[in-house]
């Protein structure tokens, strides 16, 4: 499975987990974006400070909610970032951080384009 074969935001994941409750699903998606914004900022700081092993832990943390909300591409990249952090491969980490950022922007795009949602920010 490659990143492109995965969905940006697979809403069936949350439907099967918490039930078909659109309002609640929206709230969790917005909460995920807020959490991801803070988490990605932490990851960038860790990278700049060369705390590569800590990136593994933060990526693992964010991966949990990415999987839970169905952000498949994001969780796939976070899994790869977790591994690169563990391998202390700084160059690969940089590439993956940028790709995670793009994947999150795509998730944001999906949520914003859903007219019923008004995502806020932290």
């Amino acid at each position, binding site marked *: 499975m490659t990143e492109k074969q995965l969905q940006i935001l697979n809403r069936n994941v949350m439907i099967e987990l*918490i039930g078909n409750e659109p309002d609640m699903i929206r709230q*969790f998606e917005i909460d995920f974006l807020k959490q991801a914004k*803070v988490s990605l900022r932490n990851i960038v700081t860790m990278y700049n400070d060369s705390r590569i092993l800590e990136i593994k832990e933060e990526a693992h943390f964010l991966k949990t909610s990415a999987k839970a909300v169905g952000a498949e591409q994001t969780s796939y990249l976070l899994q790869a970032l977790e591994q690169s952090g563990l391998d202390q491969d700084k160059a690969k980490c940089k590439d993956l951080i940028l790709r995670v950022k793009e994947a999150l922007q795509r998730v944001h795009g999906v949520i914003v384009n859903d007219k019923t949602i008004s995502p806020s920010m932290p």
Partner: protein
Amino acid sequence: MTKQSHLACRNPKVIMIYENEEDVLGAASIIADQVEEYRTILVNVEIGDKVKNLKPSVILFALTTVQKSIELYTKLISDKFLDYPHYSILLCKNRESATAFRCCIKDIFDNYFVYQPLYEKFRLKMIVHSGLLISQATSHYAGLHEEQLENIGQELVSLIDKSSECKQSLLGSIAICKKSLKEPQNLVVDKELDTNLSSKKLMENINKTHVEPLLAELEDNIKSSLDSMIQQLLSKQVGIEVLEAKLADLSRVLPPDRQTVSEALSESSMLTSKIEHVEIQKPKKILVVEDNQIYRDMLVRVLAKENFLVDEAEDGLNALQKIRSNQYALVLMDLFMPNLDGINTTIQIKSVSGGKELPIIALTGNKNKELIKTWAEQGLKGYILKPSTRNEILEAVNKVIN
């Protein structure tokens, strides 16, 4: 392990209402660092309902102009979306600080803070902190001199005065409510003082009017419960006597064969089980230990819907504290957590629970098989692959609980 984000809070004590995302980035992150139960909300047509539902203690108004903030706050009060004691903070640009100051002097907002440019982040923290501590405190600033204020347009002055009246009306209503809540208690005390009853007489009165009827009711309840238990025991006794008679009859003719004995035993056990089922089943209590608040909230939601009593902890240390003071039927626990991970928490639980086995189900990704093996050696009853579906989660939980 990194700290979890506290920004995804669904029941915040502090909210910031904003209009332009870029304007509030700095202030929002300062408050998010300070307060766990915090949320930013974009102003839109649903803002009134949102505020009414969330009932935050502290509300920060960060619209693009002070005028807009005053208008919104006045509308929230007038339309009864804000009809309870709260602490309001006006965030403003430096050039509007005189207007913001005037608003606070006029008791519209409880405080204000210049957030553009953002210089004094600790002052913002202090204001929010004070807001959380103060329920309602109204004090008038005596040193208001119009000439000290910068020129403010007549229209805006009039809006401020109008809004001030509206806020005073709200505070007045709250004060009347508080007074009316206190009055019945005062009446009782006054009445007692007027009749000059001694403390002994008062105690006698209380005993007669409250304690004795309660004791009588309790006695009746105990009596009826005992009657019911005696009836159950008698019916069990009758059942056993019938069986004994049946067995005696059979033994006169033939020695009892295996089938007769087992039938008799099964009848007897049915009687016993009927009596056992009379007991009311209490809902089982489950502890969810997961550092990611979003996934933790989802699990809590899934389990609570199935009528489990659900408690939550954000790491192993927090979980141990809760286990010491609660009786849980099951613990769902993440592997990687800050402070104390899943494996070490499991080891600690054994000593905390004093030998009594507390079932634990692991929450894990499929990449951690070796660690799960190590964890299983410490005593796991099952595992749930994150995120899993509702059915998979409930299947794993019910398998252990039942």
